[in-house]
């Protein structure tokens, strides 16, 4: 008679369902103006959602809403398959137009701070792991700048430093607003590689972009002005 694998029993019970980002009937108003209303989508683990549409249509607002920075006028959003009472914002990294890099601190100090400050998400369904700060800088090709005050970095280097933040703390959802801005072609390819890795480890990406991104598994969300109220009009698989 063999021993029962008692120590494994809990892990069987704990096996969680795959991650899923669910947004239902999102409606937001900014400055007394309705930006969009009743926008719904679901995003499965390992998928990227590319948000397209004209300038000023509300792409940035959508990302900021998902990041919990804009209050909802209606609707709800949550992550399924994680801890229950955790808001979406705490599952997510927000990579926006601003880099949140302090010029007076060295590149490494910037990164180390974010690593310890941002709470990481450890759930079974997401395999992303924390990359040590030095390694993250090296991966992005700015390892040599680690001890330099970030104020000496070029725009592209600063952007990459900001990107390194997403690697040092594992979080399953990446919200990326124009991620390729200020990056040259080589860095853009590297960024795509990182994004694909993230998808590969079970993460999700919501990105607003003008350029075509060669991501492995994408869906497109096209925001279009429906006169005069702007709403989501179509949702396509790419």
């Amino acid at each position, binding site marked *: 008679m063999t021993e029962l694998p008692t120590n494994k029993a809990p892990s069987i019970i704990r096996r969680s369902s795959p991650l899923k980002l669910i947004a239902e009937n999102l409606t937001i108003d900014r400055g007394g103006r309705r930006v969009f209303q009743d926008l719904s989508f679901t995003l499965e683990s390992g998928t990227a959602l590319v948000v397209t549409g004209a300038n000023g249509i509300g792409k940035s607002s959508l990302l900021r809403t998902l*990041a919990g920075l*804009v209050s909802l006028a209606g609707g709800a959003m949550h992550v399924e398959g994680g801890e229950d009472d955790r808001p979406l914002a705490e599952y997510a990294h927000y990579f926006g137009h*601003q880099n949140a890099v302090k010029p007076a601190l060295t590149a490494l100090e910037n990164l180390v701070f974010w690593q*310890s*400050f941002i709470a990481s998400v450890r759930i079974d369904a997401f395999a992303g792991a924390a990359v040590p700060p030095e390694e993250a800088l090296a991966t992005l090709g700015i390892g040599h700048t680690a001890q330099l005050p970030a104020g000496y970095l070029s725009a592209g280097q600063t952007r990459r430093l900001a990107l390194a933040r997403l690697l040092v703390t594992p979080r399953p959802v990446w919200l990326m607003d124009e991620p390729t801005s200020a990056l040259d072609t080589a860095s853009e390819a590297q960024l795509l590689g990182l994004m694909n890795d993230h998808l590969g480890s079970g993460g999700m990406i919501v990105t607003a972009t003008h350029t075509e991104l060669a991501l492995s598994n994408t869906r497109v969300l096209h925001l279009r002005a429906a006169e005069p109220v702007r709403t989501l009009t179509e949702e396509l698989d790419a």
Partner: protein
Amino acid sequence: MSSWGVALFNRDLRLSVRIGGSALVGVLFFLAVVTVIPFGVGPDLNLLARIGPAILWIGALLATLLGLDRLFQADREDGTLDLMLMAGRPLELVVLIKCLAHWVATGLPLVVAAPLLGIFLNLDPVAMGAVTLTLLVGTPALTLIGAIGAALTVSLRRGGLLLAVLVIPLAIPVLIFGVSAADAAIHDPVPFLTPFLILTALSLIAAVVGPVAAAMALRFSAD
């Protein structure tokens, strides 16, 4: 406090020390205010000794207000505040730690400078000690109350002056008990301990109300 709190505290302290030496500017401003007063009221040493604690307190209040407008604004301008809001840390504690770091960088130097400036104002050693002690207990309250104003005006391009207008009425009780306690130590109409304990209580209340209100204001400002 866990490691993230320490990391935040260290970062904020490092930033204030490295950027323009804000501690130094605050102390210089304090010195300037204290130097100007005798020109206004005349060089009568007895009068100066009598109003000395009040001058030091008002100087400290103004110097504190001066540095407060950047408390959250710098973080908002470069997007740091957005990330702090979604970091999964209690925002009230984040505000409290930022205030603490700000106080260590700008308030504590004022407290240290106070005895030296007391010499200019003809304060005797007891008075000097009393003023320094009340400043040590009272200036954190100024920073914490000021944090509310800083959070409310965080989105305004030139919020510094408005911040002062909003915060000064709230800071009146701290000023009253700070100066009263210092006065009580010099010529005692009342025992020193009564106003001093009330001052301590005000600081503790500010440590609760300030971060709660400021955190609420910061959440709204992200919108």
